[in-house]
């Protein structure tokens, strides 16, 4: 039996034990309050992150349209086939079906099916029909997700301008990459709650974040002009057995490009196909080099010696500076001596006595060298820079090449002489066309461009693109004089093949020998515009390495003539007979 004292001592101790336990439980309760109230958000977010599997929903990429709403780049529904490792019940059947339907090697499919990941993509950009067929097998663990693939309804049309997209619908070249941020849209996601093994928990449902479709891009391209120019370029290329033909058609008043053709084009729907006749067994690096060549847009990525078309610039600079007037008379003996060099005219016998207008019509080298020398290096360089020739045009396509020009301090009279008639330096075709436009449009240096506006899926205009215009690079008078002189070139001079019945056309031809000299390779080109008194359209045709006759007047001018014969009425430009 307990003594009373002892009993009290034990009771006290039992009480101590009890309250110690209660104190510890209260402490733990405080810890729980901290975890479940203060830290609840943190842990809940962490847990949600752990529980939710994310599946992307591709956003529909914005379309690319021409100026009249013709769709040049569209989307087509395609499927992405994936497998979810933990849900597969019959791996052999899955491997068999996927190999058969997707025409993939068994090894490729097997490694992906057997890989322990939450979700493994087998193949994307699968036809909708194939995707539907796979879905009908109803295989556990195989997911068929529909998404969009870029589709170009006109195949090769404007391939180097439009560009194409990669496997994730991202722009690779051309307008597709330049306007990526407008076109791409915002991808959505499907969030599904899964258990630790990745199996979806149905009763938790799924959260969807809807994708936002990309904006449509309206361009200045005119489908009809682009298509017709392409046809002309193909014909010329075939007829002259040329390496390539480029045509740019632009509005010289605002820089909107109606067409840009670089034949040979490539098929935008199969951009990775190598040109016919290429050895299939080449290495991947070489293959990529060939493809880069195929995708190259010569009008902006490559430079060339412009040759006589550049005389437009020399003439404008001379007139603006006042070192020459149209009526000034010259005498061409067939050559000119500059310092210790004797530079020949293309007409060996010489043009004899001629005014500056006639010299322009004759494309007489000694006269333009004389004008260049009258300007001097400093002035010539001033105009070269003033016209914007040393800067890029700022066209909205990636990879524009810069001008390759002598440094001012390295420029002597010989260099000045050669530059005056378009040799010994290099510019891009778009640079030449832009500068010529600026000279004939009253002296406004425009920015060549394709992008007009971005429009969202509801048709609301998201952004109208605006482009820089630099005023006053030449005076109105000089510009008018240049238009008249260039009209004379086409009417009665070397550009006579560019003449279009019933329209006033101005222009200038060029025949440049490519480097190295004496290789027998030429570039024939012609810059033409109409109407000559109020230019609404300007075009350049460049024929690269034509066989047989290689003169610009014979090879390139007829291309522009045919182009103008068709597009001037189409553009609603009135001939002088119709006024």
């Amino acid at each position, binding site marked *: 039996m307990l003594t009373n004292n002892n009993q009290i001592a034990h009771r006290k*101790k*039992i*009480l101590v*034990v*009890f309250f110690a336990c*209660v104190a510890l439980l209260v402490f733990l309760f405080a810890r*729980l309050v901290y975890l479940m*109230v203060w830290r609840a958000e943190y*842990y809940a977010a962490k847990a949600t992150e752990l529980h939710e599997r994310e599946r992307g929903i591709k956003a529909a990429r914005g379309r690319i349209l021409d100026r009249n709403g013709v769709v040049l780049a569209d989307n087509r529904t395609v499927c992405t086939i994936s497998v979810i490792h933990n849900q597969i019940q019959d791996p052999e059947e899955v491997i068999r079906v996927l190999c058969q339907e997707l025409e993939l090697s068994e090894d490729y499919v097997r490694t992906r099916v057997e890989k322990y990941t939450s979700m493994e993509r087998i193949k994307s950009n699968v036809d909708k029909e194939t995707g539907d067929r796979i879905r009908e097998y109803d295989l556990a663990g195989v997911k068929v997700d529909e998404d969009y693939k870029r589709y170009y309804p006109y195949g090769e049309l404007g391939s180097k301008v439009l560009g194409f997209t990669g496997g994730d619908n991202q722009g690779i070249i051309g307008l597709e990459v330049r306007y990526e941020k407008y076109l791409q849209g915002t991808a959505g996601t499907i969030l599904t709650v899964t258990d630790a093994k990745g199996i979806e928990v149905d009763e938790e449902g799924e959260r969807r974040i809807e994708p936002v479709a990309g904006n449509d891009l309206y361009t200045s391209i005119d489908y009809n002009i682009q298509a017709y120019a392409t046809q002309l370029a193909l014909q010329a290329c075939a007829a002259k057995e040329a390496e390539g033909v480029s045509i740019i058609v632009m509005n010289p008043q605002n820089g909107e490009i109606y067409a840009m053709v670089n034949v040979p084009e490539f098929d935008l729907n199969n951009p990775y196909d190598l040109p016919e006749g290429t050895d299939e067994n080449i290495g991947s690096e070489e293959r990529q080099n060939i493809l880069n060549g195929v995708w190259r847009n010569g009008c902006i990525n490559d430079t060339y010696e412009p040759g006589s078309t550049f005389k437009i610039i020399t003439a404008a600079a001379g007139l603006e500076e006042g070192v020459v007037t149209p009526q000034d008379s010259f005498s061409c003996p067939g050559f000119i001596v500059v310092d210790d060099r004797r530079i020949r005219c293309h007409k060996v016998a010489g043009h004899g006595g001629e005014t500056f207008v006639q010299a322009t019509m004759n494309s007489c080298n000694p006269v333009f060298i004389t004008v260049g020398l009258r300007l001097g290096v400093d002035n010539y360089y001033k105009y070269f820079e003033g016209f914007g020739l040393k800067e890029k045009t700022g066209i909205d396509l990636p990879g524009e090449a810069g001008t390759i020009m002598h440094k001012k301090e390295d420029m002597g009279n010989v260099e000045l002489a050669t530059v005056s008639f378009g040799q010994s330096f290099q510019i891009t075709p778009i640079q030449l066309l832009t500068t010529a436009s600026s000279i004939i449009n009253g002296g406004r240096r425009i920015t060549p461009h394709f992008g007009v506006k971005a429009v969202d899926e509801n048709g609301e205009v998201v952004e109208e693109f605006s482009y820089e215009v630099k005023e006053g690079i030449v005076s109105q008078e000089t510009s008018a004089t240049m238009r008249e002189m260039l009209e004379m070139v086409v009417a009665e001079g070397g550009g006579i093949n560019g003449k279009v019945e019933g329209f006033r056309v101005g222009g200038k031809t060029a025949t440049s020998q490519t480097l190295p000299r004496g290789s027998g390779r030429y570039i024939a080109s012609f810059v033409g515009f109409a109407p000559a008194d109020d230019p609404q359209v300007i075009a350049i045709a460049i024929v690269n390495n034509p066989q047989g006759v290689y003169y610009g007047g014979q090879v390139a001018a007829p291309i522009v003539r045919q182009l103008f014969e068709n597009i001037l009425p189409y553009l609603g430009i009135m001939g002088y007979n119709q006024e």
Partner: protein
Amino acid sequence: MDIAMAARRKGKRRKKEQAEYFFDYSLLFIVLFLLGFGLIMVYSASYYEAFSDYGDTTYYLTRQLAANILGLVAMIVVANIPYHFWERFAVLGYAVSVVLILLVMTPLGIEAGGARRWIGLPGIPFNLQPAEVAKLCMILFLSSLVCKMGKGVRTMKGFLIMVAVPMPIVVLVKEVTDNLSSAIIILGIALLMVFVASPDYKKFIIMGVIGVAAVAAILVIIINADTVEGFRSARILAWLDPESDALDKGFQPLQALYAIGSGGIWGKGLGRSIQKLNFLPEAQNDMIFSIICEELGLFGAIAIMLMFILLLWRMMIIANNALDLFGALLVVGVMGHIAIQVILNIAVVTSTVPNTGISLPFISYGGSSVMFLLIEIGLVLSVARRIQLKT
């Protein structure tokens, strides 16, 4: 004579009434509530895993229910046997504990979850965890020892004997069954009983200070060590910063924190835990409290903690009113057992102490555990029945 007879009969009846009156129904109801709640939570926490592993959502539930029923039967039997009946088995129980623990090393031992902690006989559906037997036997043995020592408990020698006697069992449990948590529980029960039995505080305060200092020293050594060797050091580091080792040792504590934290104040609702979907290992077992937090929120958690406090309070009342020291010490032992497990379990689940496997009494899945706990409750009820009503 008639009058005398009537008076005697009356007296007998009163005695009978008293005995029935003192059956501690509050304690019984608290235990039944915890058991029922435990079954619901075991089912909620385990049905998903049970279905994916066994194709039967009630796999764990039915087993736990069977253990509960067996345990309740045992409890009723024990509650109706006067507790002094067991005093004679104290030494035998101690010996049986040792033998059972050693049996784990024989072919009768059963391995599960990477540890060899159970023994099983062919043809018996339940496996026995000797550590559970050892806990019960330790309570019985120490109670009986203290009573036999009488005034000896006041001496230093008596104190040393009381502390030394449980040590072989503690060491055996730790070393043979590699079960640190059960060893800690047995040691804790023993120390609590010694604390209550011996009249002074000084020794215990000194012991407490030394214990805290030792733990602090071990922690400092582990934190400053360049390389961590061994299972438990890694667990301690994972405890200090679970997110640094989220894929290995920190995984279970971190998953438990995710469950607790994502429950918030009101919880996700019964059955709506996501962490139990294979994310949280041992969801129906040691970690069941975190599922309670996730599904029922802070309020569910506090309700359960209050139920345990009520349970401890009832046992404190019984211990304080026990007829004799033997009864009081039995109740203190059981009270200590339950209190230590509840506190350590919640502390582990909330990452307050390093991760070690301790189940939540009456609620966690586990047959041995719940059966022996119910036998202990039977003992407590038996002590309660002997309390005399004082007027």
